[in-house]
């Protein structure tokens, strides 16, 4: 794996790779070079299997991380390419022509993260959700609990007590708390 990255590093810009295991490596690549790297890895280096394509929302850094995980099934190596996208108006490059199955992943990302992949088949069609009107749900700023409580209704009548405050109320309510 190291040797492979070493071979490629002259032609492409790689971030510092993380060798999570002997057979698993994460590395950040430039968005503009992603397609070329993927094509080369697929056609020359034997990384023919697209294991998964997903996104991570780093909202603090205002970025989406796209993770393209590709696998060389002969050598049993897995390489995960990270591509960082701006969170505002996020758009990725479709790779459905390299792997037709990527179209499904891209549809999901479009729906769940709001990352667009222009040119990907049926990317704008509803995939999992139906009639969704709120923020894309997998974004970090979408609060599922708040949404759930306002949209659906919990069964009323539940109330809980914190042991500490309950004991204070029952046992030492008159004790002056602290010197403040």
């Amino acid at each position, binding site marked *: 794996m190291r040797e492979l990255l070493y071979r490629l590093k002259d032609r492409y810009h790689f971030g510092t790779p993380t060798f*999570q295991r002997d*057979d698993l490596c994460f590395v950040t690549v430039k968005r503009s070079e992603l397609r070329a790297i993927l094509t080369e890895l697929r056609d020359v280096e034997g990384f023919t299997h697209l*294991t998964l394509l997903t996104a991570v*929302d780093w909202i603090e850094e205002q970025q989406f991380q796209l*993770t393209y995980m590709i696998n060389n099934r002969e050598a049993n190596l897995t390489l995960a390419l990270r591509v960082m996208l701006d969170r505002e108006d996020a758009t990725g490059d479709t790779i459905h022509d390299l792997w*037709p*199955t990527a179209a499904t992943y891209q549809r999901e990302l479009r729906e769940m993260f709001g990352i667009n992949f222009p040119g990907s088949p049926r990317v704008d069609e*509803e995939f999992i959700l139906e009639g969704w009107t709120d923020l894309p749900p*997998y974004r970090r700023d979408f609060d*599922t609990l708040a949404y759930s409580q306002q949209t659906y209704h919990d069964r009323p009548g539940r109330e809980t007590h914190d042991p500490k405050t309950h004991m204070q109320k029952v046992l030492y309510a008159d004790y002056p708390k602290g010197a403040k």
Partner: protein
Amino acid sequence: MFSFSPDRSQYPQPGPDGKVEVDLETGKYLKLWHGPNHPGITGNMSVELTVCGDEVVEGKTHVGYLHRGFEKLMERRTFIQVFPIVCRVCVPEPDFNEYCYAAAVEELAGIEVPEMATWIRTLILEMGRFNSYMMAMGGISGALGLGVVGQWMTYTRDLMLDRFEELTGARIYHMFILPGGVRAHLPEGFEGRMEEVLSTAERYLADAEKLMFHSSVFKTRTQGVGYIDPALFERYGVTGPNARAGGVAKDVRKDSPYLVYDQLDFTVHTEEASDIYARTMVRFKDLHETIQLIRQILKKMPKEGPVMGNLPNVLHWKIPRGETYIKGESSRGEYGYYLVTDGTGYPRRINVRGPSYTHAMALLEHLISGTNISDVAALMVSLHTYPPEIER
């Protein structure tokens, strides 16, 4: 002269891109929803078929009926709180989720798992595979009208559920593989009772073999039907038995052994035909392999030893920033968990890579056009997909 083949000369011919122009106003086409409430569908999903006569012109898979937003819910739960919900991702074979999640957490948190626990984990995974294959065998036979095989398979699966129950404390959602180990040791006399189940299963499988693989009806309906070109495997991300039925002898258990698979003897079975028959056959052989593996594990596993490693206080368990991917060979193909942590007490992101995701979407849509309506159910079942892991 009477012919078995109907006259299909009026049917539309696909254009150069392999697609048919569908115009509903011509009156030639009918939209047919196959599911979600349909006996010939694998779970709660649907395929929107556009048919012309009895031939499917176009099929679109619709999923999301079982979407619970697991990947979102996991982000709101602490690492231990994720443990009970992962198994819900895949109902018929939940243990893979538990294993992959636990292994991912252990890797990022640096937790050692005792040897005894890895053996029990392997046992659980094989038992789960047994169940899943039983469902698949029952499903495919049911889809082709061989109801009795489905009855037998469900019965034997149920016997295995009894073993699951006594080992893990639950029938379906076992919640047994905790990060750090497993919950308990084998109960007393477990091996004997397991052997009973396995021999019963073998008896029924011998019968099923006669009813399925030696049945002229089954053969006619499955041989040559639902052919997947092995050249498509890589492009459509086909793994597991579906790929093995096309001669690709790939199995994560063999290629990058996890747990104790490197200490076990087993064969990776392949077929060449890559049709429904071949896929069913691969599963059938694999099922026997699984039975053999369960016996082997019970024989080889250590008899005592701790089953739990040391966990920090799980109520405020933080894992340093990192990411990893853990995979394993489930009954349907490569199953994996992609876990990203950010140093807090909650996972930043968990992505589940279920084999059904690639099989039931792009691949199925590709395969379905041009088939006969009556073969759709069999085709879907033969891909062995479970909807809950597609949409999670």
